């Protein structure tokens, strides 16, 4: 156990570098988040007061206050008077995101299975057709999409926020790639055992693509969660307002309520971050199969 043991020394150096990289990554990716949280806990005039010169004051509130949060949730007198309902907006967003991810898991998994496994003429062309749906920027299609949604009678309802997104080219494409990583021999074995195609999907594909399914669900969840322009166009009543739209309303023609914007930014991002954190354990134990590949 001498310190001169080269293997031991290399190990220590290795650990040191891992720790260093860990801290550096945390610093780079977390600093803006911490600044946002710090700013959300300041009274408005203080938000940009200490941004320069750089010091501990840049991040730590001097006059700590929870007022911004009390305002946006309509708990404080002022917040109530101004009619802020970020709580409602958060619930709306959570409901819509969950509904999309739920339906998307079924619809896109079926479609991804089709592309990964099933036999069909001109499947390549069909895949390009699927991917092609996101070759045109939303800015060019939002008006006709709104027309379609209106004609179907969904404008200004939850359906407007859910239905257009229940199938996703991104999810289908990525899932079908994950599915293709699963050895075909497993399907074959299941079919010989008498499983139907749906049975193969349920008992072979889905269990073996858990990590992939979880990942795309999470990405889709945050995608819907962060949608802004579409909810802004497609819904009008305040009862349907999603959180991103609610945060934007703090920028008015007369004034920008920075404190409330950052408080809104915090409550808009923390739920997704906690969700992500909670799901980490599935990533750890998620290793697919051991060695059946190839």
């Amino acid at each position, binding site marked *: 156990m001498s310190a001169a043991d080269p293997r031991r020394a290399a190990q220590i150096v290795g650990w040191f570098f891992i720790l260093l990289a860990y801290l550096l*990554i945390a610093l780079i*990716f977390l600093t*803006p*988040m911490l*600044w*946002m949280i710090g700013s959300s806990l300041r009274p408005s005039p203080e938000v940009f007061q200490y941004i*320069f*010169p750089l010091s501990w004051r840049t991040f730590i509130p001097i006059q700590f206050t929870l007022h911004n949060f009390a305002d946006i949730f309509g708990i404080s007198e002022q917040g109530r008077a101004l009619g802020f309902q970020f709580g409602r907006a958060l619930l709306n967003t959570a409901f819509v995101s969950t509904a999309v991810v739920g339906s998307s898991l079924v*619809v896109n998994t079926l*479609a991804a299975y089709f592309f*990964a496994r099933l*036999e*069909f003429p001109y*499947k390549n062309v069909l895949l*390009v*057709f*699927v*991917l*092609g*749906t*996101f*070759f*045109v*920027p939303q*800015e*060019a*299609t939002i*008006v*006709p*999409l709104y027309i379609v949604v209106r004609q179907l009678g969904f404008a200004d309802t939850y359906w407007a926020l859910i*239905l*257009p997104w229940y199938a996703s080219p*991104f999810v289908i*494409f990525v899932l079908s*790639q*994950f599915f*293709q990583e699963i050895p*075909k021999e497993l399907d074959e074995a299941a*079919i010989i055992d008498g499983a139907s*195609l749906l049975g193969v999907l349920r008992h072979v594909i889905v269990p073996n693509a858990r*990590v992939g399914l979880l*990942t795309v669900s999470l*990405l889709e969840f945050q995608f819907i969660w962060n949608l802004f322009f579409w909810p802004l166009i497609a819904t009008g009543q305040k009862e349907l307002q999603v959180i*991103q739209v609610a945060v*934007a309303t703090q*920028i008015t023609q007369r004034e920008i309520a920075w404190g409330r*914007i950052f408080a809104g*930014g915090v409550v808009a*991002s923390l739920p997704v*971050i906690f969700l*992500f*954190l909670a799901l*980490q354990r599935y*990533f750890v134990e*998620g*290793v697919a*199969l*051991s*060695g059946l*590949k190839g």
Partner: protein
Amino acid sequence: MASTTATPSASPSWWTYIQRRKTRNYIFAALFVLPAVVNFLIFRYIPIVWAARASTWQYSLLGGYRDWIGADHYLRALEDPILLKSLQVTFLYVIVKLPLEVALALALAIFTNQAIRGMGTIRTIVFTPVVMSMVVVSVVWALILNADSGLLNAFLRTLGLPKQVFLSNPKLSLPSVITATIWKDVGFSTILIVAGLKGIPRIFYEAAVMDGANRWHLFCHVTLPLLRRTLLFVIVTQTIFSFQVFIPVYSMTQGGPLDSTKVIVYYIYQLAFRFQDMGYAAAVSMILLLILLLISVTQMRFLRSDVEY
């Protein structure tokens, strides 16, 4: 796609089985994809066809349709210097951002995939920028990059380097936007690659280590080949997303200065919603569609794993 590369010889029993029930299976197979196709037809293809049609009209959102002008918008596009500039900016953006982001995501994925306590937390930390709203992100980056009082300039000064103008300097504005968007998006690619890494059976590493491979060999001969499909879809999807970058530019630089960050979707937005020229905006969108179609199909052909492992 890659699935069709499976040759009959790979698994004969599976194939004869399939052949026998071919027609029935086609119909059955179609049912799997039908719900998604219905969605795409209604919510994506009707709008795309609508945009294609609008591109042949003099059309503005407030004024409606005026005259049918056939291919005029497309002819105009050929001679539009701003469009040319925005295409250059967009290509530059994608060509610089994409490899950097994927390489960084790969490094972060491999780093955070180590069986060490705390790696789930750091993965979450890398993911936080993805869920931060762009309004907040753009304010934060504007403060970091501020020409006079920004964090980065304070840092440069401590190193004894001269102050730099970033966002309002046509030479550095695009690199600045690229840096900020890589920072914001890299977590997205990282968790996809992590998911891909989780799919690599440990036995491959064990076998390679027994053969005396070092870390670098493991990376080049085990990790990279087995991640090929994952990297393919990360690259394909990130290419499409990057080509359509808009909100970061809208909120950080408004396309400027001197059009140095005027990416194509920013130009489309400007045409449609500010210049009252939705018809031309639709034509430019169709050009973007063609570009993305060509690039995506080429990428999939190039990067397709021809070798089944």
